[in-house]
């Protein structure tokens, strides 16, 4: 496996009384797409939030781009490790206001050319910039959400079930977009998905989480012939 963009060492985490993650150890390789799969409540979203410091582990250590999580300044970490959320939340206002939100938060000057280039890059016309974000479809919201994270030119992109609420056509468009981003910018991508077929198709590597445990990790082809009994049952159940 290649150099790690993010590595976990014996990471455990509780939320309330529930043990959400148990002794997770593994690496997300630099410049690759790693998919995170597992049943609902397996701890995937919690794990993703640990990757950009929206949460901190109770035990264990996390190293991000060579630095321990606790040494990162939160704002710098989150501009270098960006996250697109499942619900693609928008602030009220136009698409342009949503896209320039990262600039506004940093008090930086808006790079208009870059914004126009990226909106085209995600497959939307520049006319969309003046549209009210309330009028966007689910697929368009996700594209704007992804464009917003790309404006910060992150080293790592975290995607939390970004296609789960989309129809088949929109899902395919977003998948193609992520592959295009990966090829164009060489961004490391960590992608939570419920869809095992998508995980196998898009991901170079896959982590399988079950009940807070990392039960299997390796190249995405592992989903075709899992070694672990629980994973085999999960894959069979998902395919049924």
């Amino acid at each position, binding site marked *: 496996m290649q150099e790690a963009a993010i590595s976990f060492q014996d990471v455990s985490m509780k939320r309330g009384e529930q043990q959400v993650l148990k002794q997770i150890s593994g690496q997300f390789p630099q410049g690759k797409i790693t998919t995170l799969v597992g049943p609902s409540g397996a701890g995937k979203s919690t794990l993703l939030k640990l990757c950009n410091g929206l949460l901190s582990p109770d035990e264990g250590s996390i190293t991000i781009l060579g630095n321990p999580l606790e040494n990162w300044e939160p704002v710098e970490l989150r501009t270098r490790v960006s996250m697109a959320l499942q619900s693609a939340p928008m602030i009220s206002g136009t698409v342009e206001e949503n896209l320039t939100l*990262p600039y506004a938060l940093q008090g930086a000057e808006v790079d208009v050319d870059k914004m126009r280039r990226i909106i085209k890059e995600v497959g939307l016309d520049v006319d969309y910039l003046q549209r009210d974000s309330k009028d966007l479809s689910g697929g368009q919201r996700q594209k704007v959400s992804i464009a917003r994270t790309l404006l910060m030119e992150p080293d790592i992109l975290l995607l939390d079930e970004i296609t789960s609420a989309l129809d088949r056509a929109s899902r395919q468009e977003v998948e193609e977009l992520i592959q295009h981003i990966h090829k164009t910018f060489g961004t490391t991508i960590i992608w939570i998905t419920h869809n095992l077929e998508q995980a196998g198709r898009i991901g170079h590597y896959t982590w399988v989480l079950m009940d807070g445990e990392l039960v299997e990790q390796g190249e995405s082809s592992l989903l075709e012939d899992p070694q672990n009994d629980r994973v085999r049952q999960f894959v069979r159940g998902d395919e049924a």
Partner: protein
Amino acid sequence: MTYGTLALTLIFVLIPLILSKTLRLDLEKDTVIATVRSIVQLIAVGYILKFVFDSDSYLYIFLMVLLMITAATLNVRKKGKTIPGITWKVAATLIFVEVLTQGILIGFQITPPTAQYVIPISGMVIGNSMVLAILFLNRFTSEIESHEDQIELILSLGGTPKQAIHTRLIQAIKTSMIPTIESQKTMGLVQLPGMMSGQIIAGADPIQAVQFQLLIVFLILTTAAVTSIALGFLSYPTLFNKQYQLLQEGRDK
């Protein structure tokens, strides 16, 4: 009013009791408890006020105000359980509002520093501040719960806690102030305020009563604004930690 006449006012308690019984509303027990409590509490307060007024001691005035602030704080803190350190934040807000309003009233010699003025006005200020604090906390906690994804979005894009909570905080402040502003718009048209009505019934000159009522109306406006803003700005930093993470009840320290 004689005690005999006062006893006759119990007719107004009998009416809801009969209605509750007839319509099987099952409110008789609560109505009786509320009636007995209001009689006992108000009579006790009446005697305490008489004692404080007669003694003309600043210590007793201070103790009365302290009692009001303590009772109001204990009542409000139940609504903000999810906010760490809510008790002292509410207490600090109520003390600040009380000191500010009495400071202006006494400092500018608008009202004299006597028990007759300080205690009733403090009661109205602290009472309104308490209601505002409850309204604010209800709204603020529900704003956070229903917009957690937006707060997380701003944090995940490199925003600070202040930037992440700003819209929710402003919304909660505005919403908690709206009832005060709206009720003042219709004051005198839809309803005669309680204090003014009381003064007129007691034989005061209506113009004098109106002047005092205006004083209270303006005080309550300040109370509303200062309470929700002070409580908001005291509360929001404790919802986050140094790593700019949104803390959640029962999970994070």
